[in-house]
């Protein structure tokens, strides 16, 4: 019945809203300079995918901010970038054609 579906969606929406508030609160601790000039809104959309990815996404979200909290408190070291880190867009001279 439509009414029930709406209520269920409402409950789910409020739940997601609360999670987002917690996330935003956590971010406020770790990114003191984040609130300035609006220039690249892509990060918000990328992070939102964690919430939209279901419970698996929530697990990643928690792990993501756990790592950042650990960094903030000096408990964990910053990891070195590994070989698979995407490089900046290749220049015209780059030829990494395999073989």
């Amino acid at each position, binding site marked *: 019945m439509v009414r029930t579906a*709406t209520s269920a*969606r*409402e409950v789910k*929406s409020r739940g*997601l*809203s609360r999670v*987002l508030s917690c996330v*935003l609160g956590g*971010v406020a601790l770790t*990114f003191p*300079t*984040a*609130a*300035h*000039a*609006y*220039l*690249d*809104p*892509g*990060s*918000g*959309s*990328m*992070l*939102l*995918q*964690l*919430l*939209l*990815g*279901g419970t*698996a*996404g929530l*697990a*990643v*979200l928690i*792990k*993501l901010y756990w*790592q*950042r909290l650990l960094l903030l408190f000096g408990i964990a070291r910053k*990891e070195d*970038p590994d070989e*698979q*880190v*995407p490089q900046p*867009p*290749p220049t*015209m*001279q*780059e*030829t*990494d*054609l*395999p073989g």
Partner: protein
Amino acid sequence: MSSFNKLRSEPGSFRDRTSRVFYQEDAVFRALTAPALAEWQQLTSTNFFPRLLNEGKIVGTEQVGTPSFQSQAGKSVTVERFSPTGPSPWVATLKHKKIPVISYPYEWPFGMLRDAALLQLSLLQAALAEDMILKDASPFNFQWLGSNPIFIDIPSLTRLKPGEPWVGYRQFCQLFLFPLFLQAYKDVPFQPWLRGSIDGISAQDCLQLMSVRDLLRPGVFSHVYLQAKAQARYAEPIQPCQSAPHDKRHLKPNLKKDLRSAGFHATLIQANVSRLTKVVHTLSWKRSRSTWSEYTRQLPYTDAELTQKADFVRRVTHSRPWSMVWDLGCNTGAFSRIVAENATTVVAMDIDALVVERFYQALKAEGDTQILPLISNVADPAPNLGWRGRERQSLSQRAKPELILSLALIHHLVISANIPLHEFIQWLTELKAAVIIEFITRDDPMVQKLLRYKEDHYADYETAYFEQCISAAFTVVERQPLTSGTRILYYGQPKT
């Protein structure tokens, strides 16, 4: 005498630096850099790519040798001339099957954007299942064969880097989802917005359009509200921080790296894509009436006159084969269908979004492959847009017609839209096509209705003057008044 086959680059193909589209005569080619070639090789080894090629959902593409052409001096010049500086970055060439007519999402009715969105999402699912992804999500990557959407931007298909999120999600929302929401939830056609804003509708603007009630509609809370809030909260400065002014690291690459090390996985993208697919499936445009939607219920023609008109159009249709025909003011498309009997492609246009939507749904149900229904205002057609005004072209540059139908239209253009009659004829002449024009005389009830509430400044709207203009511009091969005498059909061929 050397033949001069010019290589022309596609002005709209520049944003992705890894490939470039160019044309030689009627053929469409794409030059690839080495990274793009690696992606292509990965793509051809998947199962989904040949399957979707066969189903006609991806444009026919094959790797070919690099085309060359002879310059007038007899020197052979290849595609290398399209490299900006230094040695050529292009290492391979693809050839694409040509699409008869290029169209843009701001010309599409609601159903076409929705079906393109569904194809985008199903392509994503197919790619993700084989460790690939579409790196962008833009309706400009889709074209049409009749009422079938086709994906054309092959370099968008790239290997999925482990742990990377779907970078195209924001673009999908701005160019597909939010315009569809605007029309499905607010009953406001999206076409003017997409024509005016090359990046579509932002989450923040879309949120402004939504009421509290709309937050409960499928997809609005997650993709509009949460995304607008997340974007505002996570907006990043690109200036280096003050303590390390030479530090060029930006937050965004760190976020991607952090997401990966936190275990971001393709299944999260698949979950989101499934959600979006369900949402888009529910979307429909519920408007039931518009200015022109009821026209065919109260036609100003007797059955005999309709038959006369259809026969006239059919005679012209079968007088010779036509490769491209425009039907201006197509309404239900009755005459587009007639002319399609002997034409390769028909572009059927109308100013009324509901009428075009209904025509599209009818064509889609039939599986039509010839008629492309578009929303277009003859008095204000889609202009050149985008970077340097060349990225998106006007219709006459994209689809040069051989025959134009202007049936029951001229009185609206001259009297309602105030276009001078001789200018309309002049515009038709410049298109260098044959024409079928239906002139509605002043005695006709419809013309009298149009004039009823306006001051009659339309001295040029007279049968004699019209015949003078059309005879000067065209060779009138056939002229037939319908029984009522107030509607006259003319078939004119361009004077060479």
